[in-house]
């Protein structure tokens, strides 16, 4: 078993190595280009590419000397049948004439042929010339509300797995020729389409060039999602904090476009990424713009409080109960003493245990079907918490503290940021267990220094705060009122 495994991993390693050097596949492709004068080899080359691909269908019409290759599930059967019925009863000469006046493009390179058939075209080989007959099937998931970023006020559509649909969702919202889209490819073997969208005049050319270079230099295959892609192109790969804003909401994307950001779309991924963004972009939700500005400003402040609670609340409990008992007020002391007196562990262990349990519950809830997940959440939260207190493993005040910081972490609108902050919290708890308050402050210092050192396309991560632009503060920390240009 183990041997088998090892072999598997070795194979994988080899494969990765292969990918990183020039792939053999590419070499064949290059050979094919060299031999492209030799028409005879065109079809056989093509066939050799798709050796052992039993799902590739081939329809032959020997009397016309044509072969049609296609993947049955990538094409639209009805259009295909229409085309087919036309050629069924024609002679070779007629067909040749028909082909010559038709608009079907001729594919010269065998690589293009490969691409075409993979993206859902029928390839017609006639006299060893490959024609591309577009009969692509637009079968995708229908547009549905967003699961990860729900809003109450605002549009409810979300991106789907098709880049064409996603582009249409954006184009439909930006009725301007200023919206530019650059098509790029990612990967070496199985190339994927990436679109960079931006509004001309709002974005600096150097930023786009920078991003273009970075994206096209990615030679790795198997990037299946935008959230993966951005980790290949960000500037600080070891940072726990997300540096590109990813969203599955077209309205957010369009808002970011108008905000002067570059938006990237990856084929087959329902997420768009935006750059350059700052820490505060992760604190925004589309809901903020629908609410009155007073309300949404309050909610934004709430979110910053939530971050602080998530980060330091449990750590503070640990530090106060372990080192700084003076800080406990008289009224709280009896309850704290009573519930702590039965706990045999030091507060750090107690807190880490409960935090870990909570993370497990959250992860279990996320992996299970929605309904089971909910049950797990409730059962875990109430039953285990209650039992833990009764068994004397944790104190009930700690349960409240941990629950509060967990709830606070879910207030943060961005799922990515929320997860990062929860992870950072663990180090705060450990450090508080070692050195108390000064430990927390030390941790805070490291986080602040780290955050202020992060960049995103050379723009600082904590932008409106440091370096400071006071004019923008009211639109990032708060949600200032919209400027009215109306008069009268």
């Amino acid at each position, binding site marked *: 078993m183990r041997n088998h495994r090892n072999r598997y991993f070795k194979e994988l390693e080899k494969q990765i190595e292969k990918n990183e050097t020039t792939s053999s596949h590419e070499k064949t492709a290059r050979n094919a280009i060299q031999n492209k004068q030799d028409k005879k080899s065109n079809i056989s080359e093509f066939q050799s590419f798709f050796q052992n691909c039993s799902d590739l269908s081939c329809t032959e019409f020997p009397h016309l000397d044509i072969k049609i290759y296609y993947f049955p599930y990538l094409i639209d059967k009805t259009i295909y049948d229409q085309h087919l019925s036309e050629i069924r009863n024609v002679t070779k000469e007629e067909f040749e004439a028909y082909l010559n006046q038709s608009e079907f493009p001729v594919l010269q390179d065998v690589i293009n042929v490969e691409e075409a058939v993979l993206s859902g075209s029928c390839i017609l080989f006639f006299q060893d010339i490959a024609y591309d007959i577009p009969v692509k099937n637009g079968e995708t998931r229908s547009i549905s509300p967003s699961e990860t970023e729900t809003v109450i006020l605002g549009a409810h559509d979300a991106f789907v797995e098709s880049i064409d649909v996603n582009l249409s969702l954006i184009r439909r919202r930006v009725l301007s020729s200023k919206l530019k889209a650059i098509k790029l490819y990612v990967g070496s073997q199985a190339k994927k389409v990436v679109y960079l969208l931006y509004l001309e005049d709002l974005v600096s050319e150097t930023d786009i060039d920078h991003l273009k270079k970075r994206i096209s230099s990615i030679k790795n295959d198997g990037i299946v999602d935008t959230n993966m892609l951005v980790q290949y192109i960000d500037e600080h790969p070891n940072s726990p904090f997300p540096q590109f804003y990813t969203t599955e909401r077209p309205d957010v994307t369009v808002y970011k476009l108008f905000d002067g950001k570059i938006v990237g779309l990856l084929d087959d991924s329902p997420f768009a990424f935006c750059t350059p963004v700052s820490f505060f972009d992760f604190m925004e939700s589309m809901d903020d713009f629908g609410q009155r500005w007073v309300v949404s400003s309050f909610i934004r402040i709430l979110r910053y409080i939530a971050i602080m609670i998530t980060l330091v609340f449990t750590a503070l409990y640990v530090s106060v*109960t372990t080192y700084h008992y*003076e800080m406990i007020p*008289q009224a709280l*002391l009896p309850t704290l003493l009573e519930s702590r007196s039965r706990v045999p562990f030091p507060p750090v262990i107690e807190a880490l245990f409960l935090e870990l349990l909570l993370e497990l519950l959250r992860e279990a809830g996320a992996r299970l079907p929605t309904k089971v997940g909910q049950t797990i959440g409730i059962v875990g939260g109430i039953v285990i918490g209650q039992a833990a207190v009764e068994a004397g493993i944790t104190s009930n005040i700690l349960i409240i503290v941990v629950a509060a910081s967990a709830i606070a972490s879910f207030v943060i609108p961005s799922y990515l940021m929320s997860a990062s902050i929860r992870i950072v919290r663990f180090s705060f708890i450990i450090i508080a267990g*070692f050195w108390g308050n000064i430990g927390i402050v030390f941790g805070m210092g490291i986080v602040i220094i780290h955050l202020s050192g992060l960049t995103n396309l050379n723009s600082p991560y904590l932008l409106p705060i440091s370096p400071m632009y006071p004019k923008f503060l009211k639109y990032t920390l708060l949600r200032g009122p919209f400027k009215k240009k109306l008069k009268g």
Partner: protein
Amino acid sequence: MKKTIIVFCILLMTTGCAQKRIIDDLALINAIGYDLSEENEENLKVTATFPIITKDGKYDRKTIIVEGKSSKSAREKLKHKTNMQLESGQIRVSLFGTELAKQGLLTQLDTFVRDPNIGSRVLLALGKPVASDILTLQIENEGQNATFLEQAITKLHSESKTINYDIFQFLRDLYDDGMDPILPAYKVEDNDLKYDGVGLFQGDRLIDYLNPEDSKLLFLFRKEIIHGDLEQEIELEEGKVQQIMLSYVQTKHHIDVNSVAMDNLVATIDLEIQGDVLEFTGEEDLSDPNIQMKVEKLISDQLKSKGNKLLLQLQKMQVDPIGIGQHVRNHMKYMRWKKLNWYEEYQNMEINVNITVKFSSNGKWK
């Protein structure tokens, strides 16, 4: 980043962590009492009480009494009497016996201000006659004497007697050259704790006690009180004693010093009180403006004469809890104030009281 993590881990390995003081392993003293020892005059009797959790999980308290030469040596002995680590960071109330207070409190207070564990909000009070009585008293249905005392003192404060006296305030008034501190006094009566006036200090030495009645008046003079209650017996007609009770707001509190003449200092305390009548046992129609004015004047005069008497008493004792010295100081040149023998001057100076009581309403009834 990686290097930082490595350095950090090495740091953790080599140096370990700070000394732990986990709350459930500590004996957190919440009240401490100091008395002079009965057997040996030079010794100090220290009573400390702290909460403990009993075996069946109940919140209870433990009181320990030891004797020692100084408060720190007594603390050493306290340590031997408990299985838990003794910590003083949660001390809420500190009590001093009468005899000890008469000798001066500064030496005792030194440990409170020097020890960084102890905050400056520790409430101080006097025990009549000894502090240990109060701390060892087991009040029914009251777990912690410390909590009880703390609540009692803060309650008194909220009833506008501005008696909330913590270490900081005591020391501030003690070090102020124009003011003397006071402390509230408590005694045990019928197996219960009872507030029993205030102790008057000259410097850090207790001089005498003031009964609750008089101390009420003292508080009226001492500081701007936002609101309070006033009970007064008045005689509108000869031989007919009536009770009146006011809920008042102090609208004016002003101490003026006239020091034009070099030797003849005159201080005037101007007070104005506006109150709503809460209780009146007389039969007169209080809604009648004439009667109102008459009652107002009666109360004012009574308060004034009482006040004068109190001030004379204070002057005779040479204590200045009202802080007249501050006002005198602020009306003088620095050199003259420094040269002044304040207590002597205080004893001989003339202090006038002007109190005006006004009814803002006579309540809901005629």
